[in-house]
């Protein structure tokens, strides 16, 4: 698990960089192993379990995108669910109404959200922190109003139903297990792409942007381009998630793309561990799968869920990934010396 570039002095950072190749491989191994396990996991789980797993992965993609904008580049966005909605509606309309191939619709959804993210990124150059959050909040509401009010296009409050599922080499993916495996593959590809990006100079530029934009600029990082890119790529991931969400649920209406869902995605980033590559999977697990597990406690399940999340964030503001990292460091004794030394 990679750590975010820490706020500490140079000493721990150097030790992290020295340990980087090993930890990076760890993430790759985790992703590959995870994909293999998830490929076989639903066997014998029933359609419900399979569906929840697929939903978890789809939400993970959206959270990965937000993790890039927030966790790596430090830009607070409250529009991730709106971008997911753009992708979902684009895919639903292109495949359902125009009969387009899902792969083309997937690519177009990504392109549309990338382009809109780029446009929305411009105010991000001028406003910072909560002001940026307000700009994205306004955008989120705007998208939601369009989805709801433009009934001729989006079906309005009645939503769009009978969204077709894609096929692979002529094989229809209508079954729960087949579609789940398809989602696993797409999620894996997107996660690997992000893993590669974070390791590339782009990833380092994003982190520099988060830690100290002035210093980054003085070192020759084009802050304008990287801010826009972080926003656009993060949004495109939401678009990809939407493109999978629509055929997964086979029905969309504006409610899963409202402002409150953007907040929920933000919660998943923070609870999973913002700035950790595997954080989004843990965050989405908390946000999507935990409430389903908690159904056994009956009508109190949402209260129990909220309590768990609050306790988690009090105990560990860096999210579950931060907690795991601390635990790992304690177990191996690594970093401890460096940290105390730094202090």
């Amino acid at each position, binding site marked *: 698990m990679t750590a975010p570039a820490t706020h500490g002095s140079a000493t721990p950072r150097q030790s992290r960089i020295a340990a980087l190749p090993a930890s990076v491989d760890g993430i790759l191994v985790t992703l590959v192993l995870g994909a293999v396990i998830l490929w076989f996991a639903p066997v014998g789980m029933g359609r419900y379990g399979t569906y929840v797993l697929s939903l978890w992965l789809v939400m993970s993609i959206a959270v990965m995108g937000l993790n890039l904008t927030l966790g790596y580049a430090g830009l607070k966005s409250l529009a991730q669910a709106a971008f997911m909605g753009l992708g979902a509606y684009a895919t639903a309309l292109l495949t359902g109404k125009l009969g387009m191939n899902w792969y083309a619709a997937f690519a177009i959804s990504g392109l549309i959200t990338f382009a809109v993210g780029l446009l929305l990124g411009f105010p991000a150059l001028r406003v910072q922190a909560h002001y940026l959050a307000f700009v994205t909040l306004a955008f989120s509401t705007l998208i939601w109003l369009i989805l*709801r009010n433009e009934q001729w296009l989006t079906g309005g409050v009645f939503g769009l*139903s009978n969204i077709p599922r894609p096929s692979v080499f002529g094989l229809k993916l209508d079954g729960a297990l087949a579609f789940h495996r398809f989602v696993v593959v797409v999620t894996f590809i997107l996660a690997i792409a992000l893993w590669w990006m974070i390791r590339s100079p782009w990833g380092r530029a994003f982190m520099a942007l988060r830690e100290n934009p002035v210093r980054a600029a003085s070192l020759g990082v084009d802050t304008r381009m990287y801010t826009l890119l972080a926003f656009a790529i993060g949004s495109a991931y939401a678009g990809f998630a939407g493109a999978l969400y629509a055929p997964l649920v086979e029905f969309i209406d504006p409610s899963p793309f409202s402002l409150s869902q953007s907040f929920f995605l933000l919660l998943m980033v923070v609870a999973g561990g913002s700035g950790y590559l595997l954080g989004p999977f843990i965050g989405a697990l908390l946000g999507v799968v935990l409430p389903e597990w908690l159904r056994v406690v009956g009508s109190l399940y*949402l209260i129990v869920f909220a309590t768990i999340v609050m306790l988690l964030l009090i105990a560990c503001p860096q999210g579950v990934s931060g907690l795991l990292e601390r635990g790992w460091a304690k177990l191996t004794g690594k970093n401890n010396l460096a940290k105390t030394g730094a202090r």
Partner: protein
Amino acid sequence: MKMQWILAAALGALSLPALAQDKVKLVDVVELSGAGATAGTNWKNGIDLAVADINAKGGILGKQIEIVHYDTQTNPGNSRAAVQRAIDEGAYAVLGPVFSGPIGASMQIAQRAEIAQLVGGEAANLTKQGNQYLFRTSLSQTAAMPKIAKYLKDTVKAGSVAVVWVNNDFGKGGRDAIIPELEKSGIKVAVDIPTEQGQADFAADAIKVKNSNADAVFVYLNEEESARFLRAAKQQGITKPMIGETTLLGAKVIELAGDAANGVKGHVGLSIDAPIPAFQEFGKKFQAKYNYASDHNGLKGYMAVYMVKWATEKQKKFDKKGVADTLRGATIKPSDEPGILMETTIEPNGDLDRESFLAEVKDGKQVITATLPKIKP
């Protein structure tokens, strides 16, 4: 040889009680949190009441009912998961959801599994998709709105009407159903006002209504919003008749709106105040158990369980697919199944046909003024 027969008989006798104790599982997938929580909680309580009644009297064909409630959070993705879970767990029939969006997202699942799904939704489009396994538990908007238009024309004698609706699937469906009916009756729509789900302040909308000078106001909002609108209308001094459909005259609205609800009139599909002893009896039982008055959603939930019971007893076996086949096109009479409360005809597309009522709120109570016949008597 004789011994073997005795053994077989003994084994058979032993297994009988085991069979009798066997349970039939119904799963209720409903809005217990989010925007639909008020409607969903009433629906759930109605179901629990029916299940307790039926189990106390020996269950369905000797089997006790096991009921499980799953929350949809008023979210389509979660509703779909919950219905899928219900089917994976071997539900005999699915009850709910109540809101049309969650129904739209989950109805294909029950359809594919060939399991009857009895829903509380009233939106017109639900039964227009050729789903053979979806059944309503109340009149649809397409059935209710012509009655309202007729009432506005003949009884209220309104030449123009202000239409206030909530911009969700329920409100938009109602609005799209009433406007053509008003036009057909030669009534002018003075002003057409969409409002938000969960809206707190209705002062601006009430002023728009007042300025429109309409002869009557048709209010089509969810429970809490209806009450807030009535209060705002009273504050703005609107004296024109307030006309509504079921929700506006519901117990929850009357409780929340207080004085402002007095004088409200309209059409009621199901009401615990209807002049039918079985309804009032239900109302009393509900009040005693939950300590508040049930609205129409409580009645819908109650009837849904009895629809499943009636169909099962009619086919004399527990055949999941058979429940839907038996319900389609059937007429259930209270003489055959008292729990259905009033004669109900199920159309082949899953719509219902029933008597309904005209009502008025007087001194904080809903009073039924007339009973309207079935559409196809």
